[in-house]
């Protein structure tokens, strides 16, 4: 600040995010954690799927590749 007095509007704007942000209670934190765990499992499953399909597509060619 340049030393000028802040108006009410400016203060409200500066604190807007604090006013709108809701309080994260225990239940909300728990739900967010559950969602994060679910997303993690989906990502792990995708990695496994891509790996398994790659092996399936390569099939016997893995064994017969030139060294």
């Amino acid at each position, binding site marked *: 600040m340049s030393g000028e007095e802040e108006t009410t509007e400016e203060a409200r704007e500066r604190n807007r995010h604090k006013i709108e942000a809701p309080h994260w209670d225990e239940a909300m934190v728990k739900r967010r954690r*559950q969602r994060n765990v679910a997303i993690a499992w989906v990502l792990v499953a995708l990695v496994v799927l891509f790996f398994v*399909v790659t092996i399936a597509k390569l099939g016997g060619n893995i064994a017969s590749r030139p060294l």
Partner: protein
Amino acid sequence: MSDTAFTDTEFADGSIASAQGGMGTAGDFFELLKPRVMSLVIFTALVGLVVAPGGINPVIGFTALLCIAVGAGASGALNMWYDADIDARMTRTRTRPIPSGRVTPQEAAVFGTVMAAGSVFVMGALVNWTAAALLAFTIFFYAVVYTMWLKRSTPQNIVIGGAAGAFPPMIAWAAVTGDVSLQSISLFLIIFMWTPPHFWALALCKSGDYEEVGVPMLPVVAGERETRRQIMLYSLLLVPVTLSPVALGFAGWLYAGVTTALGLIFLALAARLARTAPAADGDITARNKAAMRLFGFSILYLFLIFSLLLVEKMAGIAPVFS
């Protein structure tokens, strides 16, 4: 956007629901995928996968089914996002995640879009791009053509929009063969012709809900007598279409016999509904009973028809014409 932001959703009737982002559980997001609809999609796709000529590696087949299921679910989520305003006012749908405030419309839209793009990409990368293109078209057809355009503008909404539900066995077939054939189109046509009598039977009983929210379902726009007549007409078209797999050489005598018998029962129930007008005093009990009987049987009918194709293929029963 912060995941903690409050979102106001203004519905068509002017009511405003305030939902807080980040409140939904993983189960709420799963509910957005319309798991009950998804189960029928998975089953019909499985039949397309097994019946298609040639074979597919089980792992790749499983991947194709997964992509079809997730793609169908994504269309369901986008449908719930767009229809949140009318869902909030219909008894059948008001407990869905968005109208009940558990998930914000923005969250549903992002979730549906990511799932749709993901399912199409994985289908293309791991199965083949023909199946991926069909899946992308199906999602577009359901979310845009049906939900955003037809549903609120024409009483033929369910006829044309029903195509979206008919594509899964065709996508699965393409996952195996890499192309679209007459045989896969016949599977598409069975579900396509089955959808109007199936859905209109339910819509007859729920027409009050649709009228209230301004969705031009056939019973609302053309009246109940015309709806009962259209159900009969589509049923008459449906029964020969269910025999097309026999003519196209991928169904045997068991399928031909049982499907004919089931078709006759379907026609009898449709005919009974066509004759059952509301009583003179406006009592709709008998009409509703006839409609719900047809609706209930139609689910069993489609399930049995596709099961027969599956059983014949697994048991090695030869087609009538080969």
